[in-house]
């Protein structure tokens, strides 16, 4: 076992097995648990996945949404136990691994095409095809 595999094996049981296959460009709902004192509530952050970074337990995703015409981004550790639920609302068609150009876009051009329309053309995997995100 290589060192890298050994380190990954330590965190293997913390990886969520049932995450839907998430790609850059998808619109997602992230249900994030917020603990305030002994109270706990869940906040839903809906937005477009701009980027995925890191691998294994270290994977982070950047989600961008527009609040009151102000762009808001939040980075989530994908495998954090604080994420109680994770849904994919819409699959977007992206040809980039990082969609930072969306930050400069306004109005309609901010939207991404639906993945479905581009299927076959770009050779992306079908929606819901895989059970875990590619690490």
């Amino acid at each position, binding site marked *: 076992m290589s060192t890298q595999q050994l380190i990954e094996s330590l965190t293997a049981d913390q990886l969520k097995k049932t995450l839907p296959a998430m790609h850059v460009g998808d619109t997602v709902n992230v249900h994030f648990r917020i603990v305030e004192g002994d109270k706990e509530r869940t906040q839903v952050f809906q937005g477009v996945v701009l980027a995925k970074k890191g691998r294994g*337990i270290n994977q982070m995703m950047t989600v961008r949404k527009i609040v009151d015409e102000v762009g808001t981004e939040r980075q989530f550790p994908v495998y954090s*136990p604080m994420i109680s639920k994770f849904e994919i609302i819409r699959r977007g068609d992206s040809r980039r691994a990082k969609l930072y150009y969306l930050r400069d876009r306004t109005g309609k051009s901010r939207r991404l095409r639906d993945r479905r329309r581009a299927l076959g053309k770009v050779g992306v995997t079908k929606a819901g095809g895989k059970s875990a995100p590619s690490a």
Partner: protein
Amino acid sequence: MALMLMGKKLGMTRVYTDAGVNVPVTVIAVGPCVVTQVRTTEKDGYAAVQIAYGDMKPRNSTIPMIGHDAKAGSAPKRFHREFRVRPEEAASFSAGQELDVNALKDQMYVDVIGTSKGKGFQGVMKRYHFKGFFASHGTERKHRAPGSIGGLCSNRGFGGGLKKGKRMAGHMGDQRVTTRCLDVVRIDPEKGLLLVKGSVPGANNGMVQVRPSTRLYKSKTRKVAAAAEKKG
């Protein structure tokens, strides 16, 4: 009881606690270490235990060292270190004895000693966090300079040299560094792994020494006391 083990820094990862808190951890493969010699007050003038760690081809070792390790019934080892024990404790160690990560299983906090990464010859801004000078406003050729190093007679008001220990540019890193009071997050006896919270000195695959914390921070002393009380 005094104790020290050697191991290899494998790398860093993260662990989430049950409460969902992210804990950055360093993975250290601790031991197995062989006790190669027990030094006693009668024979050596002080009590200590010498341990060895890391396999080595005999041809890369030296004849005296091979003989020394063989006396303890061990194959040639790469690293040999000593730790001092109280004279009465020395009897609990014997040459040839193997020490592994289980020896640390009651510890809440450990110190990790390593050799920091070498940075080469560095200026004072990187080495000692000097502030440097303005980027503009008329500054010329002195943006990262240390500034005045003081007069020649500044040590005690006389003398003919600079104050000793004046911080200047020079070699940085590649030094023995101790990180104190790191939380033990997990111990995996099967794989011989120790997970400590935070970073430890040196590059991955570097040799590190691990010992129970010798000087606890105040807050951690309280935690240890609380844990001991709970245990009864």
